[in-house]
């Protein structure tokens, strides 16, 4: 990383988002706004039962309903590979002989209008034979539990899942084990041992825009407009399923109305492509919110932590057993269990670690990627237990954490990136900001939490920067704009490299046919890693400009710099436009820079972390002891960002993450009963509103320029929500001396806990 010769002109500032004008005027085109000429519509018949054998499907009445073009079941799609999935190819496009969750799509009706399709769906007759269902962890893990999948077919998408470890004869589709030191010795050395259990519920992403896809198939080519964060993995999956070369599969992604992971990997695209293939015209599928609730969620988890410490608070040993309840099909469940499990020790120095995490199938909606990727569930456990331990040992929770936090340069796990942040420093900032240690009125309490997450590794990104004849540039990169501000930030990085005003830099809409390969818009990686690829591409272009200018100005390259849209040196200045015109001999032509990023491969998970995503929080709450309602007075979020390319967007991402964390901490829970999801909509599933804003919500950015990304940046975005639950629970414990271990902390749960504690005290 070279030091800048001059002050940065856009990086580190907060210019207007490049997509802001479009979005405030309603002109921005989201996938749900797209219309393709000749487009027809599909609606789905979904299983009402959580587990059943498909005996017969009578489509006659539906097929002859007005406006209907086709009625399709899995039997009609047998001329392609009907299964998809990033870990296991276990999910059929439409249910084949069995349905495995209530809401699973079974029949697709294609008609000229949505209304006609919906009416025809009501005419379908499907004969189901109910099978026993498992909808809780205990049911799914029971010895005689019915198995959701008898055989499993690995998909081969992830290097770090080269070895999937299902446990035969059970619903466990992956067992991740990670150990260091010798756990028995560790517990023998400990002076006090704590054993606690924590649970995290099923929650739903609720992106404001549900899933939509439009597919067009013809001329030996597939085009899909998809609400997806992963255009390239989707392309790969479609190419494999439908037998086409990658070059003939085009995935186009306009703005997404929110994702947070629910649009990761393949979702409804194969179905829409299969339908378009059958009917011969473009087909659109737009899920309703209820259908999205029945398509994606976060993994629920039960975490058992056994931690051994010295009386002075030093952590010596930790055994973690975590069961992640995933849904009927694996999606990224195994990866979530694995990647999160890897950090079950938290950001702490623990010599003896023994971790087992499990991904467990159940007859419920698929659990998919969700901001935090399994870590919020574990952090809920380990950061809550930290305070339990501190309390019992008579230690200040801040001091206990400072004692055990890994320092910069310390090993997290052998073979992986050492810690790249000043964790104690960050925690001290959080504590200072909340006024830790200062007196509080009765009924109020403060809590802290620190969390670490490993990003997707290894990963690959590539980018192109095309400089046009007038010196403006188009960036080609596969990053999807879903609200995080990628379009703006990536443009800033290139504008900085090429000394161009931001307006002269434009990131094109990601399309797999023209954007170079990028693995994923997820895992807080885009600013950092796609940023590196773009920076490299910009530097490649810069080098070309310098060489041409050196020739044209008859001077040595060492004397030249880029400034204000041109190259200048002692012998003169040429604008980029002049350089290009001179080079090509006409007012046309372009220069293209290319760049890439390829992550280091290595133990233990297959890829070396390019950076650690760390997040810290401090909360101050007040509990209404009459009702159990929790009021959040203050919340501080620390994001260790290395270098904030766009500080306002960094803070905004943190604030949004915090609010999402408040949601799963205080309100959100998907409630299942007899295999049915009782609350697939906003009347009975409560997401935060503006009235839930803490009195004082602040995001503090720590910029130590210690990341691998452009200008020392690191990834954030998942950080905001990872420590929220334990920080709040710790504050509640401080306020009313009651410890809750099951989320969400609804007023009723708080009240129950208070009563329990009361009974315990009077007993």
């Amino acid at each position, binding site marked *: 990383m070279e030091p800048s010769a001059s002050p940065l002109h856009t990086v580190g500032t907060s210019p207007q988002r490049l997509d802001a004008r479009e979005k405030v005027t309603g002109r921005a085109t989201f996938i749900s706004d797209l219309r393709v000429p000749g487009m027809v519509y599909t609606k789905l018949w979904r299983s009402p039962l959580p587990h059943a054998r498909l005996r017969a499907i009578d489509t006659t009445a539906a097929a002859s309903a007005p406006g209907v073009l086709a009625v399709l079941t899995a039997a009609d799609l047998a001329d392609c590979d009907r299964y998809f999935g990033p870990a296991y190819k276990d999910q059929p496009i439409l249910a084949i002989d069995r349905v495995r969750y209530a809401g699973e799509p079974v029949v697709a009706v294609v008609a000229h209008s*949505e*209304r006609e399709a*919906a009416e025809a769906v009501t005419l379908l007759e499907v004969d189901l034979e109910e099978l026993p269902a498992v909808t809780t962890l205990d049911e799914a893990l029971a010895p005689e539990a019915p198995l959701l999948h008898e055989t499993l077919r690995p998909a081969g998408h992830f290097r770090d899942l080269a070895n999937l470890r299902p446990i035969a004869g059970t619903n466990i589709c992956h067992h991740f084990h990670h150990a260091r030191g010798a756990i028995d010795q560790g517990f023998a050395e400990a002076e006090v041992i704590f054993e606690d259990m924590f649970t995290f519920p099923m929650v739903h992403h609720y992106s404001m825009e549900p899933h939509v896809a439009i597919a067009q198939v013809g001329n030996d080519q597939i085009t899909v407009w998809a609400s997806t964060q992963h255009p390239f993995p989707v392309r790969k999956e479609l190419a494999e399923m439908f037998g086409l070369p990658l070059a003939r599969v085009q995935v186009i992604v306009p703005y997404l109305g929110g994702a947070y992971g629910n649009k990761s990997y393949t979702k409804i695209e194969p179905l829409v492509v299969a339908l378009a293939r059958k009917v011969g015209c473009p087909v659109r599928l737009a899920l309703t919110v209820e259908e999205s609730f029945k398509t994606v969620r976060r993994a629920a988890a039960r975490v058992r932590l056994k931690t051994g410490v010295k009386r002075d608070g030093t952590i010596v040993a930790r055994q973690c057993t975590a069961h992640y309840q995933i849904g009927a099909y694996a999606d990224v469940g195994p990866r979530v269990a694995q990647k999160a499990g890897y950090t079950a020790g938290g950001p702490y120095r623990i010599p003896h670690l023994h971790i087992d995490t499990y991904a467990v199938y159940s007859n419920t909606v698929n659990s998919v990627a969700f901001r935090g990727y399994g870590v919020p569930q574990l952090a809920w456990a380990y950061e809550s237990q930290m305070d339990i331990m501190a309390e019992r040992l008579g230690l200040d929770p801040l001091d206990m954490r400072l004692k055990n936090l890994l320092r910069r340069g310390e090993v997290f796990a052998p073979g992986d990136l050492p810690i790249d942040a000043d964790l104690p420093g960050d925690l001290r900032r959080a504590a200072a900001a909340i006024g830790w240690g200062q007196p509080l009125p009765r009924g109020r309490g403060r809590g802290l939490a620190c969390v670490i997450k490993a990003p997707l590794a290894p990963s690959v990104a590539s980018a192109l920067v095309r400089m046009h004849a007038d010196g403006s540039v188009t960036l080609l990169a596969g990053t999807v704009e879903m609200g995080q501000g990628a379009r703006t930030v990536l443009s800033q990085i290139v504008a900085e490299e090429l000394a161009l005003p931001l307006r002269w830099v434009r990131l094109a809409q990601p399309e797999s046919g023209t954007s170079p390969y990028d693995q994923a818009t997820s895992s807080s990686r885009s600013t950092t890693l796609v940023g590196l690829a773009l920076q490299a591409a910009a530097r490649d272009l810069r080098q070309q400009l310098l060489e041409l200018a050196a020739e044209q100005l008859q001077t040595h390259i060492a004397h030249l710099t880029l400034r204000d849209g041109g190259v200048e040196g002692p012998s003169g200045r040429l604008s980029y436009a002049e350089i290009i015109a001179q080079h090509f001999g006409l007012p046309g032509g372009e220069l293209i820079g290319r760049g890439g990023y390829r992550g280091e491969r290595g133990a233990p998970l297959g890829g070396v972390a390019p950076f650690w995503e760390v997040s810290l929080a401090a909360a101050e709450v007040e509990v209404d002891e*009459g*009702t159990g*309602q929790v009021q959040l007075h203050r919340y501080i979020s620390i994001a260790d960002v290395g270098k904030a390319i766009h500080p306002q967007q960094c803070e905004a991402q943190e604030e949004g993450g915090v609010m999402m964390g408040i949601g799963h901490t205080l*309100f959100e829970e998907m*409630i299942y009963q007899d295999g049915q999801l*009782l*609350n697939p909509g*906003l*009347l*009975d*599933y*409560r997401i935060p509103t503006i009235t839930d804003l803490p009195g004082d919500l602040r995001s503090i950015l720590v910029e130590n320029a210690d990341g691998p990304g452009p200008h020392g940046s690191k990834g954030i975005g998942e950080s905001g929500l990872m420590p929220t639950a334990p920080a709040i629970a710790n504050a509640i414990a401080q306020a009313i001396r009651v410890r809750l271990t099951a989320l969400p902390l*609804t*007023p*009723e749960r708080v*009240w*129950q806990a208070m009563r329990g504690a009361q009974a315990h005290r009077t007993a």
Partner: protein
Amino acid sequence: MLPPFALEEPTSVHEALALRARYGETACLYAGGTELLLTMKEGLLRYERLINIKLIPELAGMALEDGALHIGAITTHRMLERSPVVQRHFPTVAEMAAHVANVRVREVGTLGGNLCFAEPHADPGTLLLVYDASVALAQQGGTHTLALEQFFVGPFEVALADDEILTAIRVPALPAHTAAVYLKYGLLERPSVGVAVAVTALPDQVQEVRIAVGCVGPTPRRLRDVEGLLSQKELPEVRATLDAAGALAGSAADAVTDLHGSAEYKAYLVGVLLRRAFERAYQQAIRGDVGDTARGRGTA
């Protein structure tokens, strides 16, 4: 997507009643539609016809008459919220209306529609019970009045015959030295527990307490047994009885366990909200502010 229906638009109560008689169960009265259309979208109700009653002049308007607020059936929550007359003379009603659902529902949803739909998780019915409100029900032969307390029969069920239309709600002013308070608790979008209390008191003397509970059981209801425990007593005795009153109110509320919470928690909360509402109403009553007195006439 709404299932198809035809629209009828009567311009008089008489015409509306004739349409009801003609189409029976295949038609439904439609005002704001905030509950009706939602239920139809969900596929739980289906009608061949909707009878739009918003063009009937007799159903509109608010007026202060004979010490009571007369509210036309198609008055929206927002109209109640923002009416200077309601704010001045029935401030608790305005405050309750201001917190119904969200602003868009308040702009469109009507009080008459809300009461007739009888969704248990609702606010207006509970508060209006402590005002001894009544509803005017029109038939072809004439109009009769029914106490609101008798209007609520069960969840989504009211004492409205097929040949009747609710035309107005009458809310008497509270007596002198009386203040009303409505407190609610909500976990989800709709309210989970609602407690309304009206206290008539002089300093240290509680003359009358009216109590209503809503959202937790099948319908909102007055709790007269509990009222008896707290009325005609000196303040210290009332305060000493509040815990028992709260417990009695909780069990009398007939709470059900649902997604909003367990019956046990709701019953407990009824007691908590009752205590808090009583204290607040008592303080307001003896201060003489918020007296909800209505003198004279005026349109709202």
